């Protein structure tokens, strides 16, 4: 692996290697007082965040630091990026500084692909526009495996704003690679034209899907979408596509509820569902994120370049 730009770049074996490696990372740090391994000592990881995302940035930072890499974080705000420097100039600057890996978060789809063409180091897509967020999909798969023992054969419902969701795109690709059956559930306005070609089933009916789901993954729905006529009102959205306690009752007994965060409590997910200790994996997803990102950094940087 040179870069991680799309979850679709991973073969089944590669994806499983990431998940297995994440398990080892977990084991290596379990119960330790000093959560640090010397593995990437001397490597430089640049976190290039053109878009605010405290959660993802901290997760990558922690992952790199636990592997003893030197970590530099560039947030667009306050850096030369906000003063009109182009992505290309930023890339050349990183190149001159000798970054071994660039973790890139960007509001525009494909920005990490462009970056990969301009730098020698590895580029890791930490979320680009409405395109992909491959490490989120990996940590979701990791969470499923920990909770349910497998990904192969799981029935996963991904619910919400699929059209604008990089999490959905990466999950569809990765879960398909790993043998899960994915059903996308959304109002037709929030599904892309062309979704029929995706390796996933499509449904407009959440209630009909839940009884057959081992995993239900709720996507964040931005309130602004209402103004663009994607749905008539918050209330109607949450009535038709929100996961409340009643709907949670439709799930099979051992099914889990996931959310990539940040959540709109009361919109796509009810507070009591998000906080359900038995089904909700939302907090776990965050800690699993660090292990999975350590695994990816190790696999990208842990050998000869």
């Amino acid at each position, binding site marked *: *692996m040179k870069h991680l730009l799309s979850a679709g770049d991973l073969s089944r074996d590669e994806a499983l*290697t990431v998940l*297995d*490696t994440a*398990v*080892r*990372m977990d*084991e*290596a740090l379990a119960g*330790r007082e000093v959560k640090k*391994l*010397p*593995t990437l*000592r001397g490597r430089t990881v640049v976190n290039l965040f053109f878009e605010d995302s405290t959660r993802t940035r901290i997760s990558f930072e922690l992952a790199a630091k636990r*592997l003893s890499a030197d970590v530099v974080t560039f947030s667009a705000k306050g850096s030369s990026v906000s003063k009109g420097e182009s992505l290309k100039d930023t890339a050349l600057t990183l190149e001159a500084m000798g970054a071994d890996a660039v973790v890139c978060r960007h509001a525009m789809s494909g920005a990490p692909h462009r970056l990969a063409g301009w730098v020698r180091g590895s580029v890791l897509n930490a979320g680009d526009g409405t395109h992909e967020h491959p490490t989120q999909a990996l940590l979701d798969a990791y969470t499923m495996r920990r909770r349910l023992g497998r990904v192969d054969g799981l029935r996963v419902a991904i619910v919400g704003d699929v059209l604008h969701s990089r999490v959905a795109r990466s999950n569809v690709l990765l879960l398909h690679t790993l043998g899960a059956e994915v059903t996308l559930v959304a109002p037709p306005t929030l599904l892309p034209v062309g979704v029929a070609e995706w390796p996933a089933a499509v449904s407009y009916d959440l209630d009909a899907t839940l009884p057959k789901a081992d995993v239900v993954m709720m996507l964040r729905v931005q309130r602004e979408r209402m103004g663009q006529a994607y749905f008539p009102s918050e209330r109607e959205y949450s009535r038709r596509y929100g996961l409340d306690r009643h709907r949670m009752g439709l799930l099979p007994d051992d099914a889990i509820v996931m959310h990539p965060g940040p959540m709109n409590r009361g919109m796509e997910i009810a507070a009591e569902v998000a906080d359900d200790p038995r089904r909700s994996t939302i907090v776990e997803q965050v800690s699993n994120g660090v292990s999975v990102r350590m695994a990816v950094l*190790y*696999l990208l940087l*842990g*050998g*000869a*370049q």
Partner: protein
Amino acid sequence: MSRALLDAPDVARVVDRIAHQILEKTDGATDTVVLGIPTRGVPLARRLAARVHAFEGVEVPVGVLDVTLHRDDLRLRGVRALESTVEPPGGVEGKLVVLVDDVLYSGRTVRAALDALRDLGRPRAVQLAVLVDRGHRELPIRADYVGKNVPTSQAENVRVLLAETDGRDAVLLERQEVAAR
């Protein structure tokens, strides 16, 4: 081109000898654990424990110590897959730990193992057992138990085969064909 340094009966004899030596040097293997370094150190550690048990009836706990995350030479090769580290029953705290590997060469694996071991606890003492010592040390490290000392050139490669991982027991000395040409 390859030449056999040890055949299957030789390997068995060497393991027996090391098991005896461990019993001698550890006061009958009291408070002793063996930790195998993947890949081939792990079956060797199991064999040593089994032989110690056969000779003196002593149970020696066996563990696995993956050292990859502690290596300082990762950049020299492609990415290595990680193996599970398995603590021996009872842990390593206050124990005499015998690290087991197949070949002792630069000493870097052992250095990484000492670091990795620190994460498991604080042993009373650490010893090292290897099937083959081929020389060319880059660090001040020596083994307490050596199956066979083999003077080698750096253009040569020592390959250990074990039934558990390779289907048969043997130690081969190979010339690196590409380098020789």
